[in-house]
């Protein structure tokens, strides 16, 4: 296929995302906050250790707790859960969007399940499945499923009926119809659903790790807190925040690369 290569497209999207970030001087409040903190409290403290201490604590964590491995474990679980949620969410979403029967039948069940906040499913899953990787994955999938499913369903329902007629006049089979008309129509909404699901999945992953001490960053966070290692706690807060920021931006790049073919939004 002619046209810009994948690398060029990714590079372009990186530039687009970087351009769309707000001006860097907006970081001033944060920098001021950290600066003043450092001045007021330049050493360790049980409650408000200095930012410089966070830096040293990170070093400790890297060595003692194998922080990198922990982040790796967390990321891997999060990605697995997200992937499964995308698969199930898309399938179910398309099904419910296409079939009014399925919609009517499953609607109340889905509404009910939607009302349950995802964190609450963790103890339930622990009860039913135990403290293992499967439980962790199940909970993440359940949490990330809803935005993807809902967005997919509404996108399918909003497909221009004209396109369905086009499919029929070209006598496309059901699989072809799904592949050529439904899925492409669904992709933009799906990407939005994924964008919403990502923070949810991250939160649930961390939550499970905190509650169950299964390997990951969450477990380390709780451990540091229980040991009253305040600098480590703050350091982890910053690191997790950066993690969230980076994941979201990476996805923005991916989204931009995929959406190149669609008319620009807004």
């Amino acid at each position: 296929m002619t046209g810009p290569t994948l690398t060029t497209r990714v590079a372009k999207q990186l530039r687009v995302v970087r351009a769309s970030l707000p001006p860097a001087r907006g970081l001033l409040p944060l920098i001021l906050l950290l600066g003043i903190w450092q001045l007021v409290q330049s050493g360790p403290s049980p409650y408000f250790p200095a930012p410089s201490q966070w830096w040293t604590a990170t070093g400790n964590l890297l060595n003692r707790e194998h922080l990198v491995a922990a982040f790796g474990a967390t990321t891997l679980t999060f990605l697995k859960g997200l992937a499964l949620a995308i698969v199930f969410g898309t399938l179910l979403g398309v099904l419910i969007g296409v079939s009014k029967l399925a919609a009517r039948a499953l609607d109340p069940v889905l509404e009910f399940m939607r009302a349950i906040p995802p964190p609450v499913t963790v103890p339930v899953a622990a009860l039913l499945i135990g403290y293992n990787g499967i439980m962790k994955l199940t909970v993440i999938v359940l949490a990330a499923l809803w935005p993807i499913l809902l967005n997919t369903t509404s996108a399918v329902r909003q497909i221009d009926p004209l396109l369905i007629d086009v499919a029929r006049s070209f006598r496309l089979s059901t699989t072809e119809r799904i592949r050529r008309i439904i899925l492409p129509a669904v992709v933009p909404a799906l990407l939005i659903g994924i964008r919403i699901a990502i923070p949810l999945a991250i939160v649930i992953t961390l939550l499970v790790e905190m509650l169950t001490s299964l390997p990951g960053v969450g477990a380390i966070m709780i451990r540091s807190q229980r040991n009253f290692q305040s600098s480590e706690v703050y350091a982890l807060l910053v690191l997790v925040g950066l993690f969230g920021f980076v994941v979201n931006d990476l996805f923005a790049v991916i989204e931009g690369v995929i959406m190149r073919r669609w008319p620009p939004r807004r």
Partner: protein
Amino acid sequence: MRELERLLARINWLGLGTIALAFALWEISLRAGFAQYQNLPTPSAIAIGLVEIMSNGQLLADTSHTLLSVLVGWLAAVAIGVVLGLMLGASPMLRRYSLASIEVLRPMPGIAFAPVALLLFGFSLQMELMVIILPALWPVLIATMGAVMGVHARLFEVGRTFRLSRGEILRKIMLPAALPGVLVGARLSMTLALVLAVVAEMVGNPAGLGYAVVREQQAMRPELVFAYVAAIGALGMILNAALTGAVNLLFPAASGRLREVGA
């Protein structure tokens, strides 16, 4: 008679039927021994459990704690979010000097604040509030800021041609025009506040519905675990309905516009 017919026609029989069927299957398969899930209780056991915690006052105690936490946290988040959102929405300069910080702080998973909150406040209501307020203020702030920025320039020109003072323009034009957006943000924040309260209770403060779920799970009383889960879901729905009702009551004009737009 006609009214009854119409009412009956509106009920989703197929959906209800599916639920009823699912519950029936659940009950039967466990009782008859088809499925053997060690810790999965039957729906009837859950119902009995619900009655138990309702009659011994436990449910009330736990619910009131969580409710208090959610309401206080949400109100604080709304107050802070609205004030900051108004300031940022009205001043391009303020925006330039703070948007980047917000973009960095916003993706922080609320749960990451739990260990810090535990460190600072131990097991207490304040710990929960810290976990709730920080993340829950973002939707309000962003929605308010967007709403203020979205007020049509024409409205301000109307204020000027009628020679209104700046205070009047703020009070009579900007605030009412931004209100629907603010309310949407407040509603999002409420849902978030409940989730955050429950998380804070699960991971930290041993009180309230979140803790109850973990407590009963560790006490190996699965029927109560499910009962509390249902209670949390119900609380969420009630809070949402109450908020919508309150909005309709207090701001009939705004909710009219919200309904018109389909929000």
